[in-house]
């Protein structure tokens, strides 16, 4: 799985770089507009170390923000399943809040919380929270009648059991949503760093942009791609292991 994801990423990345180089040589553009392969290589050798640390820093925040948003979405969705009205209200609120672009909200967050970890974490969580919440509300509000009916008629149904049944029956869907939202957590963290933080790969990209250094940006994108692929594969592995375990029990 890891092998497949990585080589798929390599294909996409090198196709993109190849296209840029074709443009460069086709239009006779200078290294300022599009760097030469030699410059990309030299930049990669010089900055791979510090950029790798920056990507790991970003990834750590993204994973933490993702976990926070999964926990929060689960809690809110469990509450939301109590009545149809609460579920519908939460869904509407989620849609409305999601409609605000994060670049507009982020400066307010940075003014209130500063440019440290808290702001990056909050923005990462915010970006991946809403898609998770909408899916989780859908899953936890939808009864699995054929199973729940048995427990209800025998008087053994509790809210915990109900949540477990619905989660088990939709585990594939939940795993897909969690894996899908992982990329959004990574994107959210990078956006936050780009806007105002002072650490992480988003911050490095911003500095490279100030210096109009596309070679640095290409190196950063390469490492971000590798980091995100690794995280997605880890999540898929956890999801598969969980499903296998649930099936066994």
């Amino acid at each position, binding site marked *: 799985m890891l092998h497949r994801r990585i080589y798929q990423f390599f294909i996409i990345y090198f196709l993109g770089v190849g296209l840029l180089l074709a443009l460069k040589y086709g239009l006779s553009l200078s290294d*300022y507009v599009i760097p030469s392969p030699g410059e990309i290589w030299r930049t990669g050798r010089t900055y791979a170390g510090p950029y790798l640390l920056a990507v790991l820093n970003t990834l750590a925040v993204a994973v933490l923000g993702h976990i926070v948003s999964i926990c929060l979405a689960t809690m809110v969705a469990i509450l939301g399943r109590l009545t149809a009205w609460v579920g519908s209200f939460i869904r509407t609120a989620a849609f409305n809040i999601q409609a605000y672009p994060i670049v507009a909200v982020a400066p307010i967050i940075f003014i209130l919380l500063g440019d440290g970890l808290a702001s990056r974490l909050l923005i990462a969580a915010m970006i991946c929270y809403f898609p998770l919440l909408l899916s989780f509300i859908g899953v936890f509000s939808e009864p699995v009648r054929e199973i729940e009916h048995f427990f209800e008629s025998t008087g053994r149904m509790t809210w915990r059991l109900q949540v477990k049944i619905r989660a088990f029956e939709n585990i594939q869907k939940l795993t897909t949503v969690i894996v899908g939202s992982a990329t959004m957590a990574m994107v959210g963290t990078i956006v936050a760093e780009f*806007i105002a933080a*002072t650490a992480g790969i988003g911050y490095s990209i911003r500095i490279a*942009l100030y*210096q109009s250094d596309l070679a640095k940006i290409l190196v950063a994108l390469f490492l971000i791609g590798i980091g995100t692929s690794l995280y997605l594969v880890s999540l898929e592995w956890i999801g598969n292991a969980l499903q296998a375990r649930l099936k066994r029990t």
Partner: protein
Amino acid sequence: MGTDWGTSMKRAWILFPILIFLFACGQKENLEEVNYRLKWLYNVSTVGDLYAEAQGYFARHGLRVNVKPGGPERDALKELELGHAQFGVASADQVLRAAAKGAPIVVLAQLFQVNPLNWIYRPDQTLFATPEDLKGKRIGVTFGGNDEAILRALLARYGITEDQVSLFSVRYDYTPFYEGEVDFWPLYLNAQAVIIGEKLEKAGEKYAFMSPDALGVRFVANSVVTTREMLEKRPETVKRFLTALLQGWQDALDPKNEDQAVKVLLAADRETPEAVVRRQLPVTRQLMTTSPASEFGKIDTAAWQQTEEIMRTQKLIPGPVAVETLLAPGNTE
């Protein structure tokens, strides 16, 4: 006869505006169209560019110039090379970085004779009489920005090592300065300084500015640029553009034309209050017109050489770029 006369008159009345319209269209088509990409969004530092366009200076020189705002994600130099723009505004550090990587560009005119980048501080809380006083202070800097290069050059000039000061990464939010967390904060004297200064005045606080230029660090700011190909293949267009632009700038900064300049700027920049623009204009005038009015836009070769030296020393460019070859002949001093 009377009816024929009346009909002819009616026809004439209908035809007349049509002919005027066709004439105007014909005139418009005769103008040579070029794109001019600014460095930043429309603000007081672009007033002359807007003035030249709005007051018909370009049209009088046979040009239809699309003055396009810049921004953080825009790079006029890249647009020049890609052919999306024929003229642009770029800071000297951008020009030197591009030249170091082989970009075929030429500097036509230097807009700011004094770099507007300053550091604001509170003189009653932060003692600053000589650069030595920077030791032990917390100084705001945009890492990767040209203020970082200027500050490092200033520190190096006065033998202050980086461990003797504390550098603070700044962004759009001035809260760390307002709260006294940072002693010196970078800003543009003709733009944000007016707004921030007003806020501090209202709060009853004193403020002053540290000017790197006054302390001997002459780092060139915005300049008008084009490609070498444009200069060689369309020299007449370049000449007409530059004549119209510099005349536009000169007139926009002339106190006699202040009302008109403010009106032109406010039409493009609706976010800045008129009172602020009126305070920004005289500061801009001071920074751009240190030389006689007839020499507006003069390229200061010595300042360019110093800028190159700063960038080389800080390894922001890999080697010498022979800066003199980038400056258009005939407009240098």
